[in-house]
């Protein structure tokens, strides 16, 4: 082997082989050992030898079309392509001979004969593989006369019939067919990596061209979801980011982590000075493996959006206009009002809401602010309204409040059971990885009221869809367990070893009661009994079956019970603890897992240790040097209730828009209006800030150091790529506020905060920035027992000891349909928008989703005289709003569906204050509604809009 360190961002030409058998060969006299199945090209790259190539990249399986990578192999005839030739023992490969040099030059000459020679003004100048290869093969002249070609707009004063105009339809990248060498990398990336199959090669021979969709389609009208995989693999300027065209080539790379969903993709921020030129998914990112979606890849322009607030502002009352002030004045004002509230209304009258979008370090500080400085446990996080049942349910069953497996595990699964999740829209990079596995032959079961896109995956294997009525998850899952128990499909050996057999027998007796039979449950859930049986058998019989679930499981009044039913299914079939199995919640936001880990909950310190636990409290009292309360604090809904009653007076809300994202908007509104001091710490004036007294401008993920923890417990580094436009990273702002209240904190860098977390939290004890810099990421628990973290949990036994079976009685939601409200409304997400839309609405992603719409079945629409695109009024027991209708069979009759990305529609005006019995997670997913034709905004919408305009006034800065 050559004695040097291979930079890991090199392109090895073909993907790695995972064979255990080693094969030794020599390449240009250098011996190299590689796994069997490796290509000659990759073996050469591992030996440090670069074979010229155009159509090959290690993102994609070899294709063998460009013929530039030909080599000579002793004993083999001709000049085989090194990308498609697998290695063999004792093979002798020569990559540089006169013959291959001549062939390569000839091939390059042909490529260049149909390519414009405008390198100096080309957007890919300096980052073009065609240019590099022309250099590598020593191309010095092109003998071919200009003739028929694809790149000249006009030829001999005539329009060139082969020339095609650029496609500018996508807002983020441009397709210039004139520069295309038809290597098919883009088509293959769309198929293999993204799984959308939006691109193809149109025609053949000289007529071959890359085509998005069909003849009349553009990139925008095609199936393209703008994931950027094609742009990433394009070797020329044919597919290139508009920002690169605008700015030029980047000069440095900052490795960081996406701040959108819970997949937590690793990204390389390509910078020119303090300007982001492009965000490219890191090939070595362990969650995303070099892939991305439209949000992380392109929708980061909000960070420099004109509406971003960069200076602190205060006001006496929320109906006053904002006054721009100095940081000192704003912090002092906030601190004085908080102290005043506590003096007048007691120590427990103030609290904090931590953000699932901020870093672990920032979240840790905010909860510490409540506990150590306010002196109470009034800290909660938006996980309350999404995944709190996951924490509770999985901790009860397994002993840890987190998903059991890493995302790589999906590559080994034989069947994926997806419940109440829409991975291709909500968690797109995981969705692509799952779809790839479905194309390889894995089975799919979807339990969802809606026909989700995953069911339309191109070239997938068999799938079963259980289109249940919203709110009946527990009944359906228990019926599946009933079938498994009744037919003896459970894994007795596993249960005896890992769980309590007697407890299982009790659970089995519970299951076998006829009320849990598929026939009975069909009546409640509207899922045919036969489908429930098929699904149960498929799940139980698959050698390695995995469960992925989302908010369609948790945001119900039976959320915690459903999580337990899921855990039961996995345990009784032995599907925990080995690759390809597991119970994996798909977390909504980038750092939901982290914000839970960091003790954002009113009853738990960091690491899920109860506030009544004396040992833990002592530990923190020592570390923080103050006495701590052993009284669990207020949850978010309790804060609102207490505020309405006048007992809760002050709130510091970091990076969350509770008014838009929490249920029953009118109730939240009146609670916020009752506060003496509401501090909103965010990038933009959001809906919550309409009721705030202090606005502290936040910093974006591009402007600070820290860590995010994704859905697979992976702690990823977030690194500062540019100076905070608002002047301070978020953690510094919290420190200022705490110190104004007399805390005396002296953190110099987020790494010091992480050191404190590691010191006080057993499952993080091994974590440090030095470790993360070295390993890029680790999955907790990371401690003496697992110094490099834990990709798969519960391998040899459950964390709590024996896995616990819990009887999962179905208690129907109080929210019922009836004469006045005959339809069930359920809510979800789209691919291009994110949560309340504060970020994505300020990007070109609005091209795909300019407004929220209400999906309604043709039958229900016809009954009500509703046509496609009509404004309709959606009314529930809680409130009403208007929204445009979209008529589709994706939803079943009796069910309507919408998203909550836009504040003008405010879907949460209609959602109710029903919530999970254990954790108060609101029942977003089930609301009984009536839908009727409408001719304009509801009264609430009108009132809210005028209040919103009033409360967003900002006084001009004082002279």
């Amino acid at each position, binding site marked *: 082997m050559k004695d040097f360190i291979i930079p890991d961002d090199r392109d090895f030409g073909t993907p790695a082989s995972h064979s255990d058998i080693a094969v030794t060969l020599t390449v240009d006299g250098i011996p190299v050992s590689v796994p069997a199945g490796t290509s000659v090209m990759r073996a050469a790259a591992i030996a440090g030898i670069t074979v010229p190539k155009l159509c090959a990249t290690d993102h994609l399986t070899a294709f063998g079309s460009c013929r530039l990578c030909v080599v000579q192999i002793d004993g083999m005839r001709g000049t085989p392509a090194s990308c498609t030739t697998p290695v063999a023992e004792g093979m002798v490969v020569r990559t540089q001979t006169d013959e291959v040099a001549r062939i390569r030059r000839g091939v390059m000459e042909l490529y260049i004969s149909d390519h414009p020679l405008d390198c100096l003004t080309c957007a890919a100048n300096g980052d073009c593989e065609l240019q590099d290869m022309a250099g590598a093969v020593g191309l010095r002249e092109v003998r071919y006369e200009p003739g028929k070609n694809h790149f000249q707009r006009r030829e001999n004063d005539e329009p060139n019939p082969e020339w095609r105009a650029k496609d*500018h*339809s996508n*807002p983020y990248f441009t397709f210039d067919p004139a520069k295309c060498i038809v290597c098919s990398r883009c088509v293959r990336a769309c198929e293999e990596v993204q799984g*959308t*199959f*939006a*691109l*193809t*090669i*149109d*025609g*053949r021979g000289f007529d071959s061209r890359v*085509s*998005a*969709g*069909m*003849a*009349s*389609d*553009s990139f*925008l*009208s*095609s*199936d*393209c*979801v703008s994931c950027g995989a094609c742009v990433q693999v394009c070797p020329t300027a044919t597919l290139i980011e508009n920002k690169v065209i605008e700015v030029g080539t980047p000069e440095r790379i900052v490795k960081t982590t996406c701040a959108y969903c819970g997949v937590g993709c690793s990204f390389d921020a390509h910078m020119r000075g303090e300007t982001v030129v492009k965000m490219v998914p890191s090939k070595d990112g362990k969650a995303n493996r070099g892939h991305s979606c439209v949000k992380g890849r392109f929708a980061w322009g909000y960070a420099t959006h004109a509406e971003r607030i960069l200076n602190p502002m205060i006001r006496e009352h929320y109906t006053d206009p904002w006054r721009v002030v100095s940081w000192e004045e704003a912090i002092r004002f906030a601190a004085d009002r908080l102290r005043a509230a506590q003096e007048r209304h007691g120590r427990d009258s103030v609290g904090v809401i931590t953000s699932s979008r901020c870093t672990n370090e920032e979240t840790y500080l905010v909860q510490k602010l409540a506990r150590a400085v306010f002196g109470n446990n009034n800290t909660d996080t938006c996980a309350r309204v999404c995944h709190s049942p996951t924490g509770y349910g999985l901790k009860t069953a397994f002993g840890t409040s987190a998903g059991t497996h890493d995302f790589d595990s999906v590559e080994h699964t034989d069947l994926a059971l997806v419940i109440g999740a829409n991975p291709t829209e909500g968690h797109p990079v995981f969705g692509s990885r799952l779809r790839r596995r479905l194309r390889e032959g894995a089975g799919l079961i979807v339990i969802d009221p809606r026909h989700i896109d995953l069911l*339309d995956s*191109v*070239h*997938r294997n068999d799938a079963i869809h259980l289109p249940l009525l919203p709110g009946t998850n527990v009944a359906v899952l228990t019926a599946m367990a009933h079938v498994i128990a009744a037919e003896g499909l459970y894994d007795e050996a596993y249960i005896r070893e890992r769980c309590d057999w007697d407890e299982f027998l009790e659970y089995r007796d519970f299951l076998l009661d006829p009320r849990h039979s598929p026939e009975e449950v069909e009546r409640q859930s509207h899922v045919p009994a036969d489908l429930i049986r098929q699904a149960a058998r498929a799940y139980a019989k698959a050698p390695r079956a995995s469960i992925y679930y989302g908010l369609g499981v948790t945001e119900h009044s039976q959320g915690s019970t459903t999580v337990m039913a899921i855990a039961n299914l996995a345990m009784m079939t032995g599907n925990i603890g080995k690759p390809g199995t597991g119970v994996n919640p798909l977390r909504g936001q980038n750092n939901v897992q982290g914000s839970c880990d960091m003790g954002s909950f009113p009853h738990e310190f960091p690491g899920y240790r109860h506030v009544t636990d004396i040992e833990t409290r002592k530990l923190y009292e020592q570390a923080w040097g103050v006495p701590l309360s052993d009284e669990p604090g207020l949850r978010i809904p309790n804060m609102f209730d207490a505020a309405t009653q006048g007992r809760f007076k002050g709130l510091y809300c970091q990076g969350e828009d509770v008014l838009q994202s929490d249920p029953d908007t009118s109730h939240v509104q009146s609670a916020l209006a009752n506060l003496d001091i509401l501090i909103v710490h965010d990038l933009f004036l959001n809906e919550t800030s309409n009721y705030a007294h202090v606005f502290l401008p936040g910093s974006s993920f591009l402007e600070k150091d820290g860590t995010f923890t994704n859905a697979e417990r992976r702690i990823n580094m977030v690194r500062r790529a540019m100076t905070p436009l608002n002047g301070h990273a978020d953690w510094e702002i919290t420190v200022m506020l705490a110190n104004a209240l007399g805390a005396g904190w002296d953190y110099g860098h987020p790494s010091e905060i992480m050191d404190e977390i590691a010191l006080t939290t057993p499952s993080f004890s091994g974590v440090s920035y030095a470790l993360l810099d070295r390993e890029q990421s680790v999955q907790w628990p990371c401690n003496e027992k697992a110094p490099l973290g834990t990709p798969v949990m519960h391998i040899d036994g459950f964390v709590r000891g024996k896995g616990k079976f819990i009887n999962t009685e179905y208690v129907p939601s109080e929210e019922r349909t009836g004469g006045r409200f005959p339809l069930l409304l359920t809510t979800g997400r789209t691919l291009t928008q994110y949560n309340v839309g504060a970020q994505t609405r*300020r*990007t*070109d992603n*609005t*091209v*795909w989703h*300019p407004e929220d719409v209400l999906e309604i079945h043709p039958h229900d629409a016809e009954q009500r005289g509703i046509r496609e695109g009509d404004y309709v009024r959606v009314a529930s027991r809680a409130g009403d709003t208007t929204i445009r209708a979209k008529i589709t069979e994706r939803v079943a009759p009796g069910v309507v569906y919408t998203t909550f990305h836009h504040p003008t529609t405010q879907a949460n005006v209609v959602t109710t204050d029903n919530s999970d019995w254990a954790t108060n997670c609101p029942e977003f997913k089930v609301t009984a509604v009536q839908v009727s034709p409408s001719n304009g905004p509801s009264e609430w919408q009108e009132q809210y809009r005028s209040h919103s305009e009033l409360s967003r006034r900002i006084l001009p800065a004082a002279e």
Partner: protein
Amino acid sequence: MQSPANASHPPNTPKVAVLDGEGLERLHAIIARHAGSEGPLLPILHDVQAEWGMIPEAAQPIIGSALGMSRAEVYGVVSFYHDFREAPAGRHVLRLCRAEACQSVGADALAEQVRGALGLDWHETSADGRLTLEPVFCLGLCACAPAAQMNDRLVGRATVQRVVALAEGAR
């Protein structure tokens, strides 16, 4: 931030109106005939061409979703084969071979003369819809070059007179 591209056409939606009504029923009948068979795409496309005389773009998304394919993939196959037409041909189709073996015995000159005699350029259909002239790359009749094809009938050692007579004789 609405882009102008979006104002005219919704994203991720074909620009042609997807087949509906009676046409959709005919297409579903064709797809149903091939249900469960191995590699059904080409047989379906042949039947569609027999039914419509072409492969309507409006049919491609429906064929795709019936077979678990994307519409781009279907289009890739349709556009690969020159015999799948974007517009219906005339009642009769004359093909002249333009491949190397035929070229070596004067196919280019033959083609020039036939085009002149019929007053048709490549891919063109006569105004009365009677005849379409198509080039073809190899009919597998190299031993009898130059070769031509009039509808289903192959013509070896083709001459201008013979080809034009056949073409004009076809009503």
